[in-house]
């Protein structure tokens, strides 16, 4: 099963006929019923953008701009009210293991399973016929990849916030999804931990042969510049696409000159007009 998936990935990369775009967001609007049933609240309005295969795509915006909503819709957790989201050419209808969501909430781990068992659980869901020893080996590999080897047999309640997010990331990578949807996964961490985790995410992504496409939601400009090949800036009320910025300094150290310049540009774009 794993082998099959890997060849599928390889095909997708080598075959010239496959589109470079993995996700097409096509004139998407998302609205919710308003409070007390009055009218509707438009969270996302007429957003069109494509996410390329194998890139790290950051959705940046102030809080309340609908960026998480858009990400959740890509995941298939909520319906769009207008337009269409297509992944691999097919409209998204429901959640899938091909698009794994990583939350900001530390409570995304199953508290009744240890670190490695959380990962094993997900691997078992992805490949139900995989023999237990292989499943365990696979889980351990990813647990060690994120540096949680010593904590593998601990329960989540004994971990720090950063360790919990590492575990969630290990679990997400372990099922080899086509796409990772990350909803401010480092938003609840302290500044030092956040920077470390950004670096780690880049490292793990590279260790996985830069195969996984990542959509990453954040309101942190520095984080966006450190992580994103491209940064999509959203504006608030209702959420619209304001700008789409190529980022040549992705992965560069935080005080790199070009990176700082882009940070300034993005800050300017984020200002309410």
């Amino acid at each position, binding site marked *: 099963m794993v082998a099959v998936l890997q060849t599928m990935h390889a095909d997708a990369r080598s075959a010239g006929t496959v589109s470079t775009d993995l996700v097409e967001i096509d004139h998407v609007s998302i609205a919710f019923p308003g409070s007390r049933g009055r009218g509707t609240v438009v969270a996302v309005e007429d957003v069109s953008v494509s996410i390329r295969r194998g890139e790290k795509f950051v959705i940046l915006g102030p809080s309340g701009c609908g960026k998480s909503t858009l990400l959740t819709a890509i*995941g298939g957790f909520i319906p769009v009210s207008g337009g269409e989201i297509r992944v691999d050419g097919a409209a998204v209808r429901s959640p*899938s*293991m091909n698009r794994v969501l990583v939350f900001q909430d530390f409570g*995304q781990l*199953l*508290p*009744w399973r240890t670190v490695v068992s959380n990962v094993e659980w997900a691997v078992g*869901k992805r490949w139900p016929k995989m023999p237990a020893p292989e499943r365990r080996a696979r889980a351990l590999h990813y647990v060690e990849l994120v540096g949680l080897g010593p904590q593998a047999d601990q329960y989540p309640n004994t971990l720090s916030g950063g360790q919990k997010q590492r575990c969630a990331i290990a679990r997400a990578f372990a099922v080899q999804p086509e796409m990772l949807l990350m909803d401010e996964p480092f938003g609840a961490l302290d500044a030092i931990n956040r920077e470390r985790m950004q670096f780690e995410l880049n490292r793990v992504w590279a260790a996985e042969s830069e195969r996984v496409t990542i959509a990453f939601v954040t309101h942190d400009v520095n984080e966006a510049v450190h992580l994103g090949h491209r940064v999509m800036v959203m504006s608030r009320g209702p959420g619209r696409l304001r700008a789409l910025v190529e980022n040549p300094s992705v992965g560069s150290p935080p005080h790199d000159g070009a990176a700082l310049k882009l940070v300034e540009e993005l800050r300017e774009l984020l200002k309410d007009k």
Partner: protein
Amino acid sequence: MASIDIPDAASRRNKLVALLLNAGAVKKVVVLALVCIAWEATVRLLEVNRLLFPPISEIAVKLAHGLGLGGTGELWSYVWQTLSVILQSFAISIVIAVVVTGLAVSNNWAREFLSVMTGMFQPLPSIALLPMAILWFGFSRESLVFVVVMAMIWPIASSLTVGFATISPTLMRLGQNYELGRFAMMTEILLPAALPMMISGLRVGWGFGWRTVVAAELVFGATGTGGGIGWYINNSRLFMNIADGFAGILLVIIVGLFTESLFRMVQYFTTHKWGTENF
């Protein structure tokens, strides 16, 4: 030198005594012993009619005999009779509560049904249903199981409802993300996540059930059929074996304490370990 060593040893001994006295368990044992001594002394010194109020030593001997220490061991069969009724009812209650509450998670009508039924039957001491149960099922095990299930099921169901309602949306989304079906969602996410609440519900349910089954057996005892520990207690009144009756009562208490500690143990090895404990 020796003059220094002696107070050292003494103070160490004092510390040990203080430590023992401070331990809650030790205090409890001391209190219990004092109560027993007071009981024994009152009966003996005031020359109370032993037929009506036997000294604790006599009861202890009866209990020991009943449990097979130098006696027949007849109490075991009575206790087992009662326990088997309550265990059967417990299993039935859990299955029904899980199914109904599980339905109520996704269906509005099921939710309202559950809420109305729980609201109605929670305040009703289910022993009040025993007369009807006797009419329907006769003086049978089924009657007992019926009233005990009616006692247990509502606290279990209502705690499960709260347990399900307080599961974080993140865990539900996790389940959706890994494409869990209804059944897997139930067994792999909902039930373990609701376990802290569920354990409290099971504890309360068991407590209700235990009271109810003993009470119901007392009623059965009045008619001369049955065979559980409640029946045994009532029977000892009929034959004026008051010490036997007290032994039965003590046993009811001991079994209650024992099951309570079993629940604590389950809690210790699950929710306490996971850090999701709920009191």
